[in-house]
């Protein structure tokens, strides 16, 4: 329990200070009652206050009631909805069904109404849409303001956000504004039906430990969810997502950042966060020129190129490609580690990949312990051979 002052109601009359037997209340510099540590929660001040500005708050009182439904934040960049948002709609449907509550989505942007149609194909009950030109590009402040407004109005019990670069910028700010709990980068979500709580499971310490986290008393319960972990749901043909158009509460003045330029990374054909296949090089690559071979392999497989810290620190390839603890955490369907020994800090960034292939000349390299398929050998022979055979197989299948 705690004694709380509702600052907006307090007039600074000082009656509470007079009645307090423990000298546990003083008037602050702003002339508002302030509860000191000597308070024993006797409650005499509550009765004395003519403004009803003091109240005894059950610690973790009834804050959790009155919230209902699952809300998914729809993330988009360059006019495309991020696939993780659809994955969350799939998972969100499952959670909403367990709780027997509606599944909602929130879409904000310039042309959000059109995006809502795309979202509506995924068995959503309601879509909150804020369509305004100034929301064309994501910026923290206006997006958080719009989301806060929607959440305060519709009061969902669960809010799901992709654990993407954008999503993590957004979620941390939003949860703080809402003063609620946020669990980062979840890889598992379920419902404790008895308590109607969201069970959020996530890796910590670079994946060495898994933790299940609850947010029992505050609402909404918020999670960011790692992309490509939840399966992509099927589209449904039923129409019926109820579209709720919401007037924006933010204005162009809320754009606190001026975006001067965007320098697109041309080195990687596909970005690491999105890639289904990643070909990565480490110290064994021996020099920057040899990364060409990995780019070629990535290209024939339709993947992206990653690198270990050793390769990046040697200046062979830009940091944007670094996989591992001080780089990116990736979870592709296929990770091909070429000349990477498998230091713990590298494993932390890729060990949840579906299939790992390791090519290394040292049979004792730790990377083989996590690899599904290992090739002990000279990568300068193996990689070109993979490229050759992939091309050959492609050519054959094109003919047949």
């Amino acid at each position, binding site marked *: 329990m705690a004694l709380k002052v509702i600052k907006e109601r307090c007039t600074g009359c000082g009656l509470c200070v007079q009645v307090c037997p423990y000298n546990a209340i003083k008037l602050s510099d702003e002339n508002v009652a302030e509860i000191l540590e000597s308070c024993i929660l006797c409650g005499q001040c509550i009765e004395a206050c003519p403004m009803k500005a003091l109240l005894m708050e059950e*610690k973790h009182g009834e804050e959790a009631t009155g919230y209902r439904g699952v809300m998914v934040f729809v993330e988009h*960049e360059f006019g495309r909805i991020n696939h993780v948002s659809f994955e969350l709609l799939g998972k969100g449907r499952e959670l909403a069904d367990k709780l027997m509550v509606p599944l909602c989505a929130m879409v904000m942007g310039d042309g959000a109404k059109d995006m809502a149609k795309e979202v509506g194909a995924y068995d959503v009950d309601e879509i909150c849409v804020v369509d305004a030109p100034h929301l064309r590009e994501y910026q*923290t402040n206006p997006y*958080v303001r719009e989301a806060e407004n929607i959440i305060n109005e519709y009061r969902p019990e669960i809010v799901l956000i992709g654990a*993407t*670069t954008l999503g*993590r*910028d957004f*979620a*941390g700010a939003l*949860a*703080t*504004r809402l*003063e609620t709990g*946020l669990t*980062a980068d979840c890889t598992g979500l379920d419902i404790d039906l008895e308590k109607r709580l969201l069970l959020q499971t996530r890796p*910590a*310490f*670079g994946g060495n*430990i*898994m*933790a*299940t986290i609850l*947010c*029992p008393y505050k609402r909404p319960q918020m999670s960011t969810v790692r992309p490509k972990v939840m399966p992509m749901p099927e589209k449904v043909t039923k129409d019926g997502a109820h579209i709720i158009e919401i007037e924006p509460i933010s204005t162009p003045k809320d754009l606190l*950042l001026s*975006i*001067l330029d*965007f*320098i697109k*990374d041309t080195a990687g054909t596909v970005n690491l966060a*999105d890639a289904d*296949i990643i070909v990565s090089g480490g110290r064994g690559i021996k020099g920057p020129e040899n990364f060409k071979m990995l780019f070629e392999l990535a290209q024939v497989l339709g993947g992206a190129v990653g690198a270990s810290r050793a390769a990046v620190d040697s200046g062979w390839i830009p940091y*944007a490609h*670094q996989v591992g*603890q*001080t780089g990116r955490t990736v979870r592709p*369907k*296929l990770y091909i580690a070429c000349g990477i020994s498998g230091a*713990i*800090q590298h494993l*932390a960034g890729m*060990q949840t990949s579906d299939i*790992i292939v390791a090519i290394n000349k040292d*049979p004792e390299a730790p990377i*083989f*312990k*996590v*690899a*599904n*398929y*290992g*090739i002990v*050998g000279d990568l300068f*022979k*193996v990689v070109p*051979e993979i490229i050759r*055979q*992939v091309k050959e197989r492609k050519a054959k*299948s094109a003919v047949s």
Partner: protein
Amino acid sequence: MRIVVCIKQVPSTEAKVQMDPVKGTLIREGVESVVNPFDEYAIEEGVRLKERYGGEVIAVSMGPPQAKDALRQALAMGADKAALLSDRAFAGSDTLATAYTLSLAIKKLGEIDLVICGKQATDGDTAQVGPGLAQRLGFRQLTYVCKVREINLEGKKIVVERLLDEGVQVVETTLPALMTVVKDINQPRLPNVISIRRAARTEIPIWGPQDLNGDQAKFGFDGSPTQVVRIFTPPPRAGGQILEGEVPEVVSKLLDALSSQQVISI
């Protein structure tokens, strides 16, 4: 220019983190502690900006008393002052409570132009404290910064580059701002003996809840809406197989395996 750098002491990655199987808690004893790697870039950037634009750098950390070691490293790297938030009342803080507590400490420091944090800490990996802190302070939020192009102190402007998924975004905003930094931003210096000695002599005040002008209910465990209910070790990856034979044969086996599992479509 007054800069605050927020840092965290974390278990070294090289040391394998283990669980107490009975209590279900993490065994932290005997595990070497280091400055969170991303925070080293934050310290370095703060010091470089001070060298470029003048002013001072104040390092702040929250944690157990031994987190002073992390602050000493920041001082040795060139921070001018440091403060440690350490009290039992802060124990059990999640990211909401941590950002709240840090925000009070920063307010206590007076007028600040820039707060720098690492992108995330390598133990919790949440990347939530930076954005939370920016909101609490009402500062402009700049995440994933890989370069500070320019600061105009008179005009209160800052131009940075942010490393995003598909490239680099160049952004201008006004100060005060909070930025979280990635590794690409700089190469942290190694402190020399003189600066290490100086750091060892610098007094680091320890602040508790009584030193912060805040709501006691928002500190520590009570102020943390999230609760860890279970921790477990993930099942190890199933043992793989080493493909053997001549190179063409091995590659052929590999591609057969990958296409039969539909990992690649050829």
